[in-house]
Every structure is written in C-alpha cells, then in structure tokens.
C-alpha cells in the first residue's frame, strides 16, 4: 500500500546528553531532526551533575558547546515539555502523536527575570529534587536551554499569575496556554529517554525515608553544586552543619534480586567522586565507602588508585545489612566487614546511597523491544527505524552514552536512506 513518500526526518525522544548528541550528529550530517524533551529545558541528568568523573570537569562546559551547535543549526527543531503518546508505522513512515504541556511563557521571553520579581509564591524546586524552593515564575536552572522562563501550574488562576503577566514587558506570558497534541511524520525514531534513580524507599532496611541525613547519589550532586540548595557547601540536611563522617553505600538496590538485579556501572566511580567532593571541602572529614567490589574499569582504574591514596578515604568491603536511625535522626550503619569479620555499628553525619539506574518508563513502546529490565535493545527482526541512545538502552556513563548516541544517529540515517531507496509499494529488494 502506498503510504506516500518516505520521510527523511529523524525524531529524537529525550533531550539529555545522548539525545542532544544524536540530534546534533544527525543534523550536522544533513538530516532534519526533531528533538523532544519532556521537561522545560534540555540537558537531562547531566545538567544536574556537579562534575564528571574521572577528570572532575564541569558538565556545563560540554553542554554549552552542544547548545551552540543546536542554536546554529536550522535543521534541529527543539520541542520542550513534550512527550510521545503513541507511535505507529515503520522505517520511513512513522506517525507519532506528541503531547505538549503548557509552559505559559512564549518565545518572546528574554529571560530578564521581571516575572520572578512580581510574586513571592514559591514551589518545590524539581531541579534540586525538592531540597529547596523556587519562585513560581522560574528559569529551570541558570544554564537552561532554551533560556526561557516557566510558570508553575500551581499558580495558574490565582492573583499571582496575573501579577506575573503584568510584570512582563514583552508580552511573553500566555496564561491561556494549554495542553496540545501534535502529530509528526518521521522516518526514524531514536529513544534517548534516559533513566531515573531506583526508588530508595523500596530498600526499607536502608531507612532512606527515616532520616534527612540519608540521601541518594543525585541529591549529593546537587549538595555539592554551586547552584544547588546549599550553594555548593556539603552540609548535613538535618541541621545545616558541616559534615565530619560521611558514608557512601555502593549497590544500594543494585546487584540485588530483591531490587535491580544488574550493575549500573557508574555508581562506583560516582561515589569515589563524591568522596573527593567531601575531601576537597573538609580537611578533617573521613569518608567510608562500603562496597561489594569496586568496579572501575579500564582507564577509570586510575581514578580509583588516586582516591585510594587518600588516608581519610576508607574502602570497607561489606554490603551493610541495615541502617538504624537514632532518636535524634543520626544514621548508624550496621553490617559485617567481610575481610576482618568485624560486626560493626557506626554512626555518620551523612550517608549517601549509591542508587542504580532504572530506565524511564515510556508511554508507548509498542514498536520498540525491551529487555527484562525495561531497557530498549535491538533484537533480531526489529524495526530498523527504531534505535536507542544512552541509558535508554542500558546503564552507561556519559562518555559511553555519547558514543552510543553517535551510533544511534548513524543507524537512524541508514534507516531513512534505506526506506527512501525502497519502492513506495514496499516491494522486496534483492541485493
């Protein structure tokens, strides 16, 4: 059946480091790209990191270059606050329904910030995992791309919204903005939908919900970041005091048949990076890293060797049994040191759970095959027009995500080119 000319447009779902890379690479090769992002700004998990391992450089640097490449390339169309609700068709001819959420701010916004001065109403700051609050008219973070404000839906219909609208000199506030559905015709789809941390409250023996001083690895990144809730100072969340004794627990909910059975590959390096954050800020602090095995592969082992030379960073071979919380909220880690067989119970100022990566749930994956854990993986007989980039396809660190994104861009280009060279009737090609 003739479905019209094959589309050469590539849809990239997810605007994190993998999606950005795939979009830029495909566009710079000469293909039209639509880049979808469900939050108000691109950058994904990487934009919320303080620093990268192993060189400890700042993620803003790499993102900034990519944002420039997007801005300068007319072939890339970025859609924020948008998600895929359904997908059908095959390589060269996909119909994709996309739902967009209201931002209440249009493209006239100059990010001047006058709207934010118009009201005192505050909402939980998602960027800092709710550890602080942000004005109801906000820029997602200082490095947000596109650099455009968002109005929290909580204030729509209140006086605060009217004040915000009146404060804008450019007519950029559109309080009548609403949900919309857009239909796209594309030739290939790259899922770059990324990951979320495993839900720490499911690991009941680690008492995540029982003490403010038990946090997860992503919250630790925000605590250490200069644009985080504490301005970059690592302080006890319970009382805002400096930390002296910090514990990092590896494989919290990973390599565990009760939780995520697989290894997420990044947490060992991430925690060693956290140990460095603490030691850079506190000359007298000690950091204990509880581990099953340290999995620092290849060139990353040099980072492990560097961290291991610090006499105030201790590696303890033990998966703790549980964390008890004292009456004053102090966490006490209990377990067995498997090298000495010592049964320990040690109290800490701050405990960081190194949570593993879980793939983000997709609203529609009918055309995409997933493995037992929900990662999108190529399988024999798969539709050639569908590929995955970054952690959507399995746990990867940033550099490996970027590599997989380049591979996905190439695979999408091959799919649209092959679809375009086939007869429109869908007849077979003998090669």
């Amino acid at each position, binding site marked *: 059946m003739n479905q019209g000319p094959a589309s050469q447009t590539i849809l990239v779902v997810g605007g994190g480091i993998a999606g950005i890379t795939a979009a830029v690479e495909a566009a710079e090769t000469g293909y039209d790209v639509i880049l979808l992002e469900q939050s108000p700004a691109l950058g994904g998990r990487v934009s919320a990191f303080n620093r990268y391992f192993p060189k400890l450089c700042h993620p803003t640097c790499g993102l900034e270059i990519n944002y420039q490449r997007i801005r300068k390339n007319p072939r890339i169309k970025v859609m924020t606050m948008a998600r895929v609700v359904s997908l059908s068709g095959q390589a060269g001819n996909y119909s994709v329904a996309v739902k967009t959420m209201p931002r209440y701010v249009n493209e006239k916004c100059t990010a001047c910030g006058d709207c934010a001065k118009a009201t005192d109403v505050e909402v939980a700051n998602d960027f800092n995992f709710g550890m602080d609050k942000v004005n109801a008219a906000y820029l997602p973070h200082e490095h947000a791309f596109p650099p455009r404000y968002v109005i929290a839906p909580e204030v729509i219909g209140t006086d605060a919204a009217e004040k915000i609208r009146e404060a804008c000199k450019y007519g950029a506030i559109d309080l009548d903005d609403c949900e919309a559905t857009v239909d796209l015709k594309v030739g290939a789809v790259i899922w770059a939908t990324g990951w979320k941390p495993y839900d720490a409250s499911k690991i009941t023996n680690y008492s995540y919900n029982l003490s403010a001083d038990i946090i997860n690895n992503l919250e630790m990144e925000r605590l250490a970041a200069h644009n985080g809730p504490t301005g970059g100072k690592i302080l006890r969340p319970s009382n805002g005091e400096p930390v002296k004794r910090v514990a990092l627990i590896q494989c919290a909910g990973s390599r565990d048949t009760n939780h995520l059975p697989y290894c997420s590959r990044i947490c060992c390096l991430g925690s060693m990076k956290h140990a460095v954050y603490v030691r850079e800020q506190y000359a007298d602090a000690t950091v204990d890293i509880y581990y099953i095995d340290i999995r620092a592969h290849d060139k990353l082992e040099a980072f492990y060797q560097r961290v291991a030379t610090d006499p105030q960073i201790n590696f303890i*071979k033990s998966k703790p*049994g549980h964390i008890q919380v004292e009456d004053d909220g102090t966490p006490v880690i209990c*377990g067995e040191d498997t090298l000495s*067989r010592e*049964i320990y119970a040690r109290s800490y100022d701050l405990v960081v759970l190194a949570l593993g990566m879980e793939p983000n749930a997709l609203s529609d994956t009918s055309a995409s095959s997933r493995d037992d854990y929900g990662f999108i993986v190529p399988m024999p007989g798969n539709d050639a027009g569908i590929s995955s980039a970054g952690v959507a396809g399995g746990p990867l660190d940033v550099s490996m995500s970027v590599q997989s994104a380049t591979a996905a861009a190439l695979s999408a280009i091959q799919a649209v080119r092959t679809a375009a060279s086939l007869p429109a009737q869908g007849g077979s090609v003998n090669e």
Partner: protein
Amino acid sequence: MTASLPENSHKYDLGFARWVYKNINGADKLSMCMQCGTCSGSCPIGSDMDNGPRKLFMMIRAGMKEEVFNSDTLWNCTSCYRCTVRCPRGIPVTYIVQGLAAKATHLGYATEQDAARFAKSFWWSLTHFGRTDERLVTAKYYFSFGLVKGIKKSLENLKIAFGMVMKGRMHLGPPHKVSANKDLRAILAKAQEIEAREQQGGAES
C-alpha cells in the same frame, strides 16, 4: 629433585561443597553466594557467632567439613529470617543453617556447644510433654554438663528461678502436658520414619 609437599594445617574435604549442595535443603543455591556480608551483617546475634553465615558458606566451599559441622553458627541461629529476606542473591540462608544443624546432629557432631545442648533439652521436653517445661528444660540443660557443673549452675540461677516461681512464670509440680500427647508422639514418630526413609533413599542414589 623433588621438594616435599608442605603439610596441610587443615584437612580439606574437596567433595564437601558438592555434598552440601545436594543434601541440604536450599543449599543448591549456595554457589550464588558473592560473599557480600549482608547475612552476617543483618544477623541480630551476628557478633555472638563464631563464623556467621557468610564465612560458614566460604568454609563449605573450601571443604572445611569438620569446622563447619562443629561451628556454633549452626546452633545460635534464632530463625528470624532477616538474612534470607535480605540476601541479594536469593539464597535461603536460614534453611541452609538449620539443615546443617540437623545433619550435624545425625552425623554425631554438635555434642559440646551450649546452644546444641539447649536445643536437645528443648526437644526432649517437646517430645515428652508436647510443650516446654521451664524447670525441666533448664535442669536437663544444666546437668548435660555433668553432675557437679549441673548443681553449680542450678545454684547460681536459683534466685532467678525463685523470682519466676513467685511471678507465676515457672510452675512446680508435675509438668503440664498437651491433651493429645499420644497423637503428637505418633505424628513425630511418623515424621522420623519418613525422614529415615528419605535419608536411606538419599544414600542409595
């Protein structure tokens, strides 16, 4: 020229691990153990065990049969199941420890440990009366150490016993029995018969 081999400081039974995998309920999963320490670290009385489950499992793999069967870890387990619930590899730790304790008894080990003596006294009371008689269980346990030690231990704890009697927590006079004591004995006899038959079958295969 051949150098003489060094003397082994331990006697290792290299077939022991395989024997355990096959003969202890749940132990076929022992090969999954990654020695993370969750079991011993979760154990409420982990510091009172000589080895703890994690080390015990390594000793099984190493073929340290004598040390495994003489370990007090088998007898100090209170069956709280924390280790089983938390084991990241799905190993039924509690079943294995209990199974090893039972095998140790059958094979004639476990005669000296306090906890093993107590377990035997407890079992004696259970099989005779269908319930525990605090006084007789304690007496049987104390006197398992011999007449002199038994009297000494009894005298040491006389004050506690007196307090328990005063509070109605320990009763004097003939032991209480369950009403269907005869039936209970028949059930236990049948269970022992089945167990013996299965062990016979296990030995043949």
